């Protein structure tokens, strides 16, 4: 693939963190322990919406082994949050959902802490609650009566139960609809989905003699967690140190503060180290799942199936706090526009509060929801017009230089190549090989999130290099990818790169392991650091070799100038004695591309950086009597720009598809009257190895201008298309279009019965 041009980048090399993880030596945050450590547990509301009349902790405090109890009354009154500062550590005067934190206990064992939690008496007075996001739009009930007093990002437009509302408006929609050959209108719904990381959210906190709190946790964003903790604890950020020993998966569910604040507050209260770890039940009732959504989509086409205009509304159910909802809902608008040319667009997103768990930024937030609606409808239109769904897509996809929804320019476009490759691989010419069997296709585009990265790189006297980054290795191999870039640029082997753990006190800032950006952005920072190190080494070598810098190059761990050379190790030793060592600070930032602000209103992510393009195709069978889906084959063609490590890209594709299959067919947090009915891993149905077929990955490389060697973001896209591709294949197999996720066997059977009563 890229093995011809590069020695290290582009090669299938083993991960730097691989051996530790497969041998069980790697220390995850959940493994972390300190001497004298207490265990913290959280009392969570059993009411969906109620006034707190009284909290009596006296019985709990009297239990032997209980070292500290805190409620809202014991801590600084701070509201925090990313888009809207609406969140508190504990419920104050009201609980807003079942699972809302009311109090926390630290005790000498987790059993004692749990008993103490049960001994706390809370008197509630129930309030009318809102569970339906559409009802919340019109109801007089206010989940946040004081919403106007909350601070929020200036871009966010709020009102009553609406936590954020964004728009994209392009062209003359009304005229386009008036001229249309046909207009199609559909409604789709998607469910609340847990990110499904293996390691629950966990944090251990300890305060030192200088009043600095250190938190060992498994956050994806150590610097964001540091900032939020500083706000909650009412401290300067410098007195909060966040470090991530290891993280057992995150998928966007560990972006925002989870249990770190409870650990830090309990540790401050008890003057002992305190560890807090979520239970499975807490994960399913009080973590940060993917929002449920309702998508209404109206599309106008001409006779040939060209998209003339689209209007649509995405309603994202944020739950009790805005969380990532406003941004997620807004991103849906770009996803709904899709990698398609459409003359006119009028899209609106609404993020709305309900009395349910607050939600987060699960991998490709809004991607699968909006794509499910958009790509299902494309197939519905194609069927109605008598067009092949692939052909319908090919007639509409964007080409190099076409404008995107925000008025930006699509560059390094590969959507047609992805569609054709996925279709060829699945055998598109034969869409219904037998009764009850069908093939489906879906495509999308997705951003590579910007944000800055800084790295320190130090050359050691043995010629190896140490990479200090503020980005955590979330499990994707992303940091190995960045290390491959660094090794390539320094003429080192990958095994010469030592990667340190993340510690906010020592590491340079990084925007974090999110948004498909880690290898991309940290890799760019490594390019910059390597450039600076080459400058330092060449200057030093010039003196040693008495040769001009202009002719120097790095080759095989040496600086070479004509027939003279000196090893990098030797230069590092010389520099240690005479110059303080070879060390560089590399930074990277990807500026947003130019766009037309008139098109995009109240949108926190108005334009996408370095988008990638991809297509999924699936071949599946549906049991005609039970509705059960069996996936026979699954193919992904994804444009990654440049494959820095094809093995880890395939890993990302396979994992993302597995999560997408879960969202498509089996996963949902089920609420009934405000209560989660399946708050355990028996009844929350993540797919098992038996449910996921072998995923066939086709890596497409259409190089970007911004990424290292032309790379684009990789991590999020694979979970975007599965619901739509699977839904379209189910429709091909059964003639029925499921319009609600998950598409369970029961729903499919009901749809088939409705069609053939």
């Amino acid at each position, binding site marked *: 693939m890229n093995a011809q041009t590069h020695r290290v980048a582009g090669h299938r090399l083993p991960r730097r963190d691989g051996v530790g993880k497969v041998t069980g030596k790697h220390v995850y945050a959940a493994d972390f322990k300190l001497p004298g450590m207490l265990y913290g547990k959280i009392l969570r509301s059993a009411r969906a919406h109620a006034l707190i009349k009284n909290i009596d902790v006296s019985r709990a405090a009297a239990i032997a082994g209980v070292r500290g109890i805190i409620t809202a009354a014991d801590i600084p009154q701070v509201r925090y949050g990313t888009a809207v500062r609406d969140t508190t550590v504990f419920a104050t005067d009201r609980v807003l959902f079942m699972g809302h934190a009311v109090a926390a206990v630290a005790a000498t064992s987790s*059993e004692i802490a749990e008993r103490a939690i049960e001994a706390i008496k809370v008197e509630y007075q129930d309030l009318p609650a809102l569970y339906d996001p559409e009802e919340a739009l019109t109801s007089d009930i206010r989940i946040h009566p004081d919403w106007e007093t909350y601070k929020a990002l200036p871009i966010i437009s709020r009102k009553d139960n609406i936590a954020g509302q964004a728009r994209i408006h392009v062209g003359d929609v009304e005229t386009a609809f008036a001229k249309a050959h046909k207009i199609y209108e559909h409604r789709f719904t998607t469910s609340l989905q847990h990110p499904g990381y293996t390691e629950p959210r966990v944090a251990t906190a300890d305060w030192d003699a200088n009043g600095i709190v250190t938190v060992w946790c498994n956050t994806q964003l150590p610097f964001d967690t540091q900032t939020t903790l500083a706000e909650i604890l009412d401290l300067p950020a410098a007195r909060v140190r966040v470090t991530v020993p290891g993280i057992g998966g995150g998928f966007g569910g560990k972006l925002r503060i989870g249990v770190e604040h409870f650990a830090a507050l309990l540790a401050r209260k008890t003057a002992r180290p305190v560890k807090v770890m979520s239970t499975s039940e807490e994960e399913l009732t009080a973590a940060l799942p993917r929002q449920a959504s309702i998508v209404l989509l109206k599309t106008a086409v001409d006779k040939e199936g060209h998209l003339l205009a689209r209007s649509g509304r995405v309603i994202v159910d944020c739950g009790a706090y805005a969380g990532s909802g406003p941004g997620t809902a807004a991103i849906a608008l770009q996803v709904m526009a899709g990698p398609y040319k459409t003359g006119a667009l009028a899209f609106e997103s609404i993020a709305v509060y309900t009395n349910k768990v607050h939600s987060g930024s699960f991998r490709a937030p809004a991607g699968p929801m909006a794509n499910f609606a958009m790509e299902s409808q494309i197939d519905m239109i194609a069927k109605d017009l008598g067009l092949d769904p692939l052909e319908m897509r090919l007639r509409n996809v964007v080409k190099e230089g076409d404008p995107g929804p925000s008025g930006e320019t699509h560059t390094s476009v590969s959507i047609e190549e992805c569609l054709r490759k996925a279709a060829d691989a699945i055998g598109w010419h034969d869409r219904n090989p037998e009764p009850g069997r069908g093939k489906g296709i879906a495509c999308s585009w997705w951003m590579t999130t910007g944000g800055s990265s800084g790295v320190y790189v130090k050359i050691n006297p043995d010629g190896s290099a140490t990479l200090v980054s503020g980005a955590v290795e979330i499990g994707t191999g992303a940091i190995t990818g960045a290390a491959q870039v660094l090794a390539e640029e320094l003429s080192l082997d990958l095994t010469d790169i030592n990667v340190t753990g993340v510690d906010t006190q020592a590491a340079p800032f990084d925007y974090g392991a999110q948004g498909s950006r880690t290898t991309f952005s940290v890799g760019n920072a490594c390019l910059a650091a390597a450039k600076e190190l080459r400058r330092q080494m060449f200057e030093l070598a010039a003196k040693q070799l008495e040769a001009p810098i202009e002719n120097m190059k790095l080759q095989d761990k040496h600086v070479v100038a004509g027939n003279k050379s000196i090893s990098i190790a030797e230069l590092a030793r010389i520099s240690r004695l005479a110059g303080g060592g070879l060390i560089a600070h590399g930074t990277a930032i990807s500026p947003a591309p130019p766009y037309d602000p008139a098109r995009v209103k109240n949108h926190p992510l108005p334009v996408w950086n370095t988008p990638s393009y991809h297509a999924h195709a699936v071949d599946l069978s549906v049991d005609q*009597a*039970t509705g*059960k889906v069996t996936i026979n084959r699954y193919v992904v063609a994804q444009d990654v720009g440049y494959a820095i490590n094809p093995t880890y890209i395939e890993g990302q594709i396979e994992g993302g598809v597995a999560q997408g299959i879960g969202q498509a*067919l*089996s996963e949902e947090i*089920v609420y009934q009257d405000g209560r989660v*009915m*399946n708050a*355990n891993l*028996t*009844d929350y*149905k993540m*797919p*098992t*190895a*038996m*449910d996921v077929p072998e995923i066939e990955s086709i890596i497409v490389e259409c190089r970007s201008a911004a990424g290292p060697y032309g790379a684009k973001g990789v991590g999020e896209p694979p979970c975007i298309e599965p619901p739509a591709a699977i839904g379209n294949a189910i429709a091909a197999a059964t003639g029925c279009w499921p319009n609600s996720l998950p598409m*369970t*066997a*029961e729903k499919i*059977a*009901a749809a088939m019965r409705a069609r053939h009563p």
Partner: protein
Amino acid sequence: MSFDLHRPASVTEAIDLAQRFAPTARYVAGGTDTVIQINRKKIDPVHLIDVACLPGMSEITETADAFTLGALTRYRAIETHPAFRVNLRALQEAASVVGGHQVRNIATIGGNIVNASPAADFVPPLLALDASVDMAGPNGQRSSPLLNFIVGPGKTALLPAEIVTNIRFAKLPARSATAFLKEGRRRAMEISVVCVAACLTLEASTSRCASVRLAIGAASPKAFRPEQAESYLLGQSASKENFAEAGRLAAEASSPISDVRASAGYRRALVAVMVERALETCLQRIREQDQ
């Protein structure tokens, strides 16, 4: 979770311990149900009596006319036992879909029966084989048909301190076959939405049904035998139409609930389809034996 763990060396010692610590004692074998129930605060035993290592209780014994399964037999042992590969396939089919590999290596069939979940996967095939349960207790040994042993959801006929020792069933006559089917949202680590076992025997030289036993799980408060469906088929030809009618009768006899896993209506529809398919599978297996 905290309890005292006892490790008796014999069944007698186990029964003594259970009597001594009653009513706060509980037997534990594989623990795959018990530990979850403790974690979810459904039970809170002070004493756990670990019977997993009791000698001689995990054997599969074959005699001329019957099989005896020790109560501590692990699913893995059933899955791989050569004697169940022909006309007792239902046992292997059920054993191979309980939990996942880790569960099947440790969970015991006795535990599955005593747990008395309406959705227990291993109960329907044993009901279809008309199995009996041997018990030992303070008043000695006794035995009961499995059908009567399970009384309701989570309830059995076990008396205080009694322990299941064996499960027995007779070998099947010639021209017999069994089949087990399970439906759920995923293919492993799954609680059955419905599970069905069938045991069919054809007359010596015709295609008429000489014996039919059907058993259905997760579609009523306890796994049950749809007697009308069974008797409908007796003496009838083993045809697709008759199997479909048996399925319809079985669905009629079921009394499923709606819960987070499925609606009652879907469960009932599954019963009809799965009974028909299980019978068809049995028929196909008998034809394979005939050849």
